């Protein structure tokens, strides 16, 4: 039922993220006082593992650490956002953090951390190229937050060959 509701809203509304979560998102916000919930953290770590595949450290422990540090930075990023953006992000994260919302919006049956990285990547690609604006919006939001949070820290610059700013 939720999937159908989402699809319908997606066809008619550009601001559907504000509506699509409905009661589910209101019951389980993705941010609490501007901080990611546990489900929200799992979402960004799972999505981050797929989006940043090839960029993250290869060693399993180092990779886990890099993803956890990125999730911490998503927290910081979220706290700096104005209230109306926090509210939208909370709805998106709440929705994608719930199993019904994850299935509806991303078409992913398993949890973000339980699914194989290839499954997560396929789900993200589905959103990225979707004919539904709401799914493309969600993909773009995740891509921007993950890339922004990851590369905001100096420890990530060497892998892309950026030496950092000149000391003055």
């Amino acid at each position, binding site marked *: 039922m939720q999937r159908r509701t989402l699809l319908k809203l997606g066809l008619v509304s*550009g601001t559907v993220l504000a509506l699509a979560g409905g009661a589910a998102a209101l019951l389980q916000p993705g941010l609490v006082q501007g901080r990611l919930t546990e489900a929200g953290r799992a979402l960004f770590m799972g999505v981050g593992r797929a989006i940043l*595949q090839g960029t993250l450290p290869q060693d399993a422990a180092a990779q886990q650490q890099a993803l956890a540090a990125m999730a911490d930075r998503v927290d910081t990023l979220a706290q700096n*956002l104005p209230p109306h953006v926090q509210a939208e992000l909370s709805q998106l994260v709440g929705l994608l953090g719930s199993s019904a919302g994850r299935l509806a919006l991303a078409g992913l049956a398993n949890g973000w951390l339980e699914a194989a990285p290839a499954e997560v990547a396929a789900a993200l690609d589905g959103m990225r190229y979707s004919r539904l*604006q709401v799914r493309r*919006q969600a993909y773009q939001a995740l891509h921007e937050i993950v890339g922004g949070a990851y590369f905001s820290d100096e420890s990530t610059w060497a892998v892309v060959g*950026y030496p950092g700013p000149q000391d003055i």
Partner: protein
Amino acid sequence: MSKLPDPIREGLQRGWKVRGGPHGAAPETLSCDVAIIGSGAGAGITAELLTRAGLSVVIVEEGPLKSSSDFRQRESDAYPQLYQESAGRKTEDKAITILQGRCVGGSTTVNWTSSFRTPPTTLGYWAQHFGLADYTPEALEPYFEQAERRLSISSWQMPPNENNELLRSGAVKLGIPVESIRRNVRGCWNLGSCGMGCPTNAKQSMLVTTIPAALDQGATLMVQTRAEHLEMAAGKVQALSCVGVLPNGALAGDAQRTRITARHYVLAGGAINSPAVLLRSKAPDPHGRLGGRTFLHPVVMTAAVMEQRVEGWAGAPQSLCTDHYLGTQPIDGPMGFKIEAPPLHPLILATTMPGMGQAQADLLRQFPHTHVLLALLRDGFHEQAPGGRVKLRSDGSPVLDYPLTGFVMEGARRALLAMAEIQFAGGARQVLPVHERGELYTTWAQAKAGIEQLPMQPLLAKVVSAHVMGGCGLAASEKQGVVRPDGVHWQVENLSVHDGSLFPTSVGANPQLSIYGIVNRLAQGLVQRLTGSAPQILA
């Protein structure tokens, strides 16, 4: 942290009157000759001219006061502290990301220093379609000249960085003329960090020029203070109602409210925000113009991988451009565009480049060899590029509804083609149109065929903007605009608008100098009317 002198911290120590945020609570009431909303391009010029004329001025800025000691050349500092919505402001359908300043100095604190007078073709269009007969290049000449002198706007003497040189070499091979871009800098270190706040105070932004001049003359600056609404009665503004906000814009639990009364009010919060103040104030709008015709110069990009190192983070950004494609068709024909070479830093690169996983990782690893061109699409000159409309959310915050029409996206496709052709002519090994369906093409023929087939849809093609204009448009008839040619609101006699929201179309060039020059004239007129004597010019 910069070890260089910081003129803002020195000014604070000298006793500048700055309140709000960490600078101490603002008083509950204030009265002055002129209250100015905003502290960017239009506000700064206005504040300096008014204070030089001996008028008492209060400047209200929603963002924080940050200065060279704070500018560590790091995106993670700059975006949340200095930009609207952490540099992630979006149009209503999320299809366009808008870079706009939110700090003392406004967008001038974080812009890339490109300085162009308003193109004569644009002014001609304003005269013909909006009755702005006195907005000729000749009439504006002295006002541009004064602003240029005040802000050290001059040709850039250093060789262009590789990112800009590649624009030149590719264009020249195609017989396309390239021109140099004047910059508002003095003693520039050629670092390339302009977008994160100039750490050496070389950029002659409002933060280090007109705002300090106004503060030295006794102006009061209120920071982290939002102009909520103007109290209107009997066709006049009676007061400006303000409230203190937290760094992210949320109201503090014990939010300090300030009511400012003034003889005259100048709205200069920048496009999107200025119309929003008027919408919140329920300002008269008998012809439904307020917030409409808001323009963005929608930007599309191509990224090339070069044999040589480009290091797009280093050196003055945007020192060369080509206007060739603004002139290949009439101004009111298919969309023209201006091509420039932007600075590149890791956070913005990673969020802007399409794709994920190994493909994106491979692309990002080429960062030192990456060359990016951008095209600014000139919106507002054709009925199918009418811009967007500013609306209010239920919490009173503004949002811009900007539909990317098929006409605009057709211009975007031509821009992607033009940029890819220039990059291949300049020796690119591969070129990627910044589009979710874009591929790394290895020849111009391949790129041409590929780009011609791309679905040019919102949220597939990456579209950004750093130039927000319009929404309180100038017009010689009240039916056509919000503001009279002298900058005064058509229906509210003690209210002027002095910022980029004045422009009745987009400018067709980076807008900062258009704002400086045009507001310089408007503010001198305001001084004359308020004091009855001739104004001193910018010094």
